[in-house]
């Protein structure tokens, strides 16, 4: 991270000193009672294969939070809103020192359809009296809890020190890969992206409300852009330019899709 990134992040860092800490309200990365310690370690190895240091970003905690969502009421499926408390209000075209409370931590109650949907996803066909109604046409629904536990068990059943993920089902690999990246870049209230490390490493600022990027000045009836994050102009510095490999990747996409390399 060079001087540019420091300049880019400095005003944000100052603002945060007055706000809720980046991780306030986040679910702590500790056992939530579903996985054994061994299972957590094994799952962490898989997550780290998908994305380096995913475990320290909170991917396993994110997954376990989802799998135990119904242990709390309301279930931890949909974080609340509208604001996380990570950004201040603005007034007269400038940020204030007033921060909203973090309402992301107040998870939303589910309606009848959402409840059935997420019980099916997490617990499978057995969660519905009479089973999944489309079972004859579509087959039964394997719940995420069973899918992931079975994948870990299959991968670790040999005596090898390292899990053999080739033994885990393709459904496990596809599902857990997606959940891993969700866990790296989710709002931290879901248990992932601990201390917003995922957002920081990808130079993504995360949720921006209520401050946003264009600040309306009631006194002049006009907008002001944030000097640290302009809307209509380039940033002064690029914190991490595209390297050779990334450029090759872009060229390959363009060529394979029948596109163009302009410059």
């Amino acid at each position, binding site marked *: 991270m060079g001087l540019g990134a420091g300049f880019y992040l400095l005003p944000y860092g100052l603002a945060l000193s007055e706000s809720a800490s980046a991780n306030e309200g986040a679910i702590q990365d500790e056992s939530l009672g579903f996985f054994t310690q061994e299972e957590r370690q094994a799952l962490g190895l898989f997550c780290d*294969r*998908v*994305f*380096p240091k995913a475990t320290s970003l909170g991917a396993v905690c994110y997954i376990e939070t989802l799998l135990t969502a119904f242990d709390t009421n309301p279930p931890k499926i*949909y*974080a609340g809103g*509208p*604001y996380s408390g990570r950004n201040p209000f603005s007034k007269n075209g400038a940020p204030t020192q007033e921060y909203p409370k973090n*309402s*992301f931590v107040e998870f939303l109650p589910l*309606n*009848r*359809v959402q409840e*059935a*949907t997420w019980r*099916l996803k997490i617990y499978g066909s057995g969660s519905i009296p009479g089973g999944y*109604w*489309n079972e004859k*046409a*579509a087959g039964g629904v394997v719940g995420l809890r069973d899918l992931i536990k079975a994948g870990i068990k299959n991968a670790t059943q040999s005596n090898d020190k390292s899990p053999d993920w080739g033994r885990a089902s393709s459904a496990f690999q596809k599902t857990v*890969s*997606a959940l891993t*990246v*969700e866990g790296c*870049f989710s*709002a931290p209230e879901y248990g992932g992206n601990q201390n917003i490390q995922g*957002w920081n*490493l990808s*130079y*993504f*600022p*995360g*949720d*921006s*409300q*209520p*401050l946003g*990027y264009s600040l*309306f000045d009631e006194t002049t009836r006009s907008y002001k852009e944030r000097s640290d994050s302009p*809307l*209509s102009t*380039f940033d002064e510095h*690029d914190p*991490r*330019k*595209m*390297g050779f490999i*990334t*450029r090759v*990747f*872009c*060229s390959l996409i*363009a060529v394979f*899709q*029948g*596109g*163009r*390399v*302009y*410059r």
Partner: protein
Amino acid sequence: MMSPSLGNNSLTHFDVLIIGSGAGGSAAAEMLTRLGKKVLILEAGSNYFEKLDDPHFENIKTKFSNDEVKMTRRNLIQPDPLTEPRTFRPNAKKIRTFVGDVNHLPKTVGGGSVHADMKTPRFHPDDFKMASYLGEVAGANFADWPIEYDQLEKFYCHMESILGVQGKENATPFDPPRSKPYPMPPGVPMLVGLLGAEGASKLGYHPFPYPTAVNSRPYDGRPACVDCGFCSAYGCPSSAKGSAAVTALRRALLTGRCLLLSETRVQDLLKKGSQIVGVRALDPEGKPVVFEADQYILAASPIEDARLLLLSDPGGSGIGNSNGLVGKNLMFHFQTYAIGIFNRRLHTHRGRAVTHGILDFRGSPRDKTRPLGGIVEIGGEGNPIDEAINYSSSVGIKGRLLKKFMVESPLRDRLMALIMQGEDAPQLTNSVDLDPDYRDIDGLPVARATYKNHHFELSAKKYYSPKLLDVIGAAGAAYGFIAPENKPATSRHIMGTLRFGNDPKTSVCDAQGRLHELDNLYVADGSLFPTSSGLNPTLTIMALASRVAASMVFPNAPERGLPISS
């Protein structure tokens, strides 16, 4: 859980029952309640606007937020394909080839207007006369609308005023005539929009600030937009975005003549002779309940409207379907995505998704030398989970390379997307019916879409794709390509299925939006569209729904329903 009811709970008799609280249903409710009618709205989804019926705007609290997991991964307001699947097939020879999300629109108070970024261009006068201009197009089923642009113009003005549309008059040579200026000037432009506009200008095209129902200044009690970056696919945390919920619907609720029941899932319509006499539904707990009114409006979106009519006549051909046209002429906009990757970061996570557009590729039905494409949106793409899924699931990249790409961000922070909303030719074979095997959570057959593209839109894509890449290059991109098509198409611009027209043999509804075969059942959403144009449909859906509602009170002069200020 927020209260499943909004508005006046003491109402006992209803003049009109509306199914669906989205763009069409809300616009109809605004018109009807202002004209003194008592209206009941049934909405299948939940309400996430606490105190939407409070006269003081500052008391409204929404649960929408800048949360990628909630809105795009766990689909807070989108029907889930597991419990509410749809099926798809490319032709009638197959039973189905896909089960899942087939152009699902949100189920929530405010409907699709809540997740939309509310781009609100008007259709062009020529769009209402496509059959006259194009003549016979083999395999297609073009028709003129039974009304002309002039008959809708004041309703356009009315809805622009209610929604709070920002825009610039006469910004392009292709603008339709308008009798009133936009309520607000354009807001702050996004960098990606300015670059795309500059590229288009270099090539002689005419970019313009995109008309959008997003406040560029405090308007109607709602605050100015802060360009938070979470607009398309997200509910607005501040209600600066003029969704139907916080605009037309709220106005209806504040009259005291409207009751909205959310989480109330309509199962079928009860018919006696040529009258609808009731609606069967399930309440929030799943218990059956029947609602009655004097007149009824379908506004649940084209696919669900057609499904409801087909569900309402077990063993028969469906309500209003003597001519077999219910569900036919299903249309989506045929979207072409031209992608540019820039060496510099474009920070498209700042802004309201799209601030500029190009109309030069829409073409004209009077000009036979080139195909009819559509409006082009100049935008960016996505948030980090979406980006990571693109690399990992679509391309199979994992590990250190995935991290490198997330840090350098070629497919998010450096990405420009030009999206052409190509006109989709209506075809009788593109249709909605009931799947023979799949059921929703309530045990009802789900909708099955049968859909295949016509040469009309395919040739437009072929013709305009190189021109889109020219714009991408002129804008300064380092790399450009046309993204592969999603199959089935993922467009959320859904039109047709209950076409309106003057001839009962070739249409389902009449020029006022009433089903030809029924005395008291109307349609007030995109289902009515005989053709799809090549422009975002939301404002036209709302203007037309408002006109349909006014026609219910003033059948021969719907303009009388408009407020004097319109």
